[in-house]
């Protein structure tokens, strides 16, 4: 299992670095906007989400809809379940979530790139990072733009299915375009990338939202840019660590001999 061990090792380092970088960017760029939106959410009673489109999922979605700790303070705590306290605890959990999923994304990135021969250096890593950004951020966000608390949204499960399908189709499409040199396959690749958007993402019944348009636009820009930097850092660090690992392998062997 040396290969598995090496992949996990590289992914752990890259995910840790990129996750911490992303958490710091979020602390300045996205979380303040989420906190602002929660003020609107609270002002609207905390249950302003339009879940009429999904009566079956309504109890579940409602329980999660007002999960914001600020709302929890408004005596809704018993129906919310546990949530981190505002301030440091909330920030700390955000860092943990970033690092853990950073490692998850890195595992996927390293495994996928190893099938294609591996990321040789930090520059190749940057381009693999761009691909990851396109697959995990750009493509799903076209149909399901980043949303702030209290914004209307369709049924959660259906959006998760569309999100997953879009990621898989876009990844397959990009892979075909990059690694198969045949025109028919390139056509299929483009079709795969476009198809989820023709099917269309699940949309809410009404787009009426207590969140100002300007605030949401700011949030979309912040999410897209922070994710771009995250993916570039992730790819570059994978390239650096992998280069170090493979580059020094003969040297290490000599020194241990």
């Amino acid at each position, binding site marked *: 299992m040396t290969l598995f061990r*090496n*992949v996990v090792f590289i992914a752990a380092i890259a995910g840790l670095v990129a996750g911490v970088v992303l958490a710091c960017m979020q602390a300045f760029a996205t979380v303040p906007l989420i906190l602002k939106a929660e003020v609107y959410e609270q002002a609207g009673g905390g249950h302003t989400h339009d879940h009429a489109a999904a009566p079956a999922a309504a109890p579940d979605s409602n329980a999660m809809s007002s999960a914001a700790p600020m709302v929890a303070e408004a005596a809704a705590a018993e129906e919310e379940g546990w949530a981190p306290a505002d301030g440091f605890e909330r920030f700390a959990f*955000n860092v943990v*979530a970033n690092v853990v999923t950073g490692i*998850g994304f890195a595992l996927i990135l390293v495994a996928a790139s190893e099938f294609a021969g591996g990321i*040789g250096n930090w520059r190749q890593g940057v381009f693999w990072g761009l691909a990851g950004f396109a697959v995990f951020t750009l493509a799903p966000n076209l149909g399901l733009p980043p949303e702030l*608390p209290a914004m209307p949204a369709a049924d959660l499960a259906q959006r998760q299915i569309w999100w997953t399908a879009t990621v898989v189709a876009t990844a397959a499409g990009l892979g075909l375009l990059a690694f198969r040199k045949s025109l028919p396959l390139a056509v299929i690749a483009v079709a795969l990338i476009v198809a989820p958007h023709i099917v269309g993402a699940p949309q809410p019944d009404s787009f009426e939202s207590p969140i100002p348009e300007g605030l949401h636009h700011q949030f979309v820009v912040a999410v897209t840019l922070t994710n771009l930097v995250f993916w570039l850092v992730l790819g570059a660090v994978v390239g650096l660590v992998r280069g170090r690992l493979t580059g020094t392998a003969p040297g290490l062997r000599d020194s241990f001999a």
Partner: protein
Amino acid sequence: MNTASVSLGASVSSQSRFVQLALAAFLGIFVMGFVGFSHIDAVHNAAHDYRHSMAFPCH
């Protein structure tokens, strides 16, 4: 890492290579899915800001 090759774990057979890489990818998908997609309230609340900031379907 006791080979001088430029690929990671080049000494393993191609079948074992596939299995190990697939295992790593599934581990990554599982981790990402648990933090970003789990419907468990406590998990959702803990990663709430993260889910919004990554544009994962949330709420």
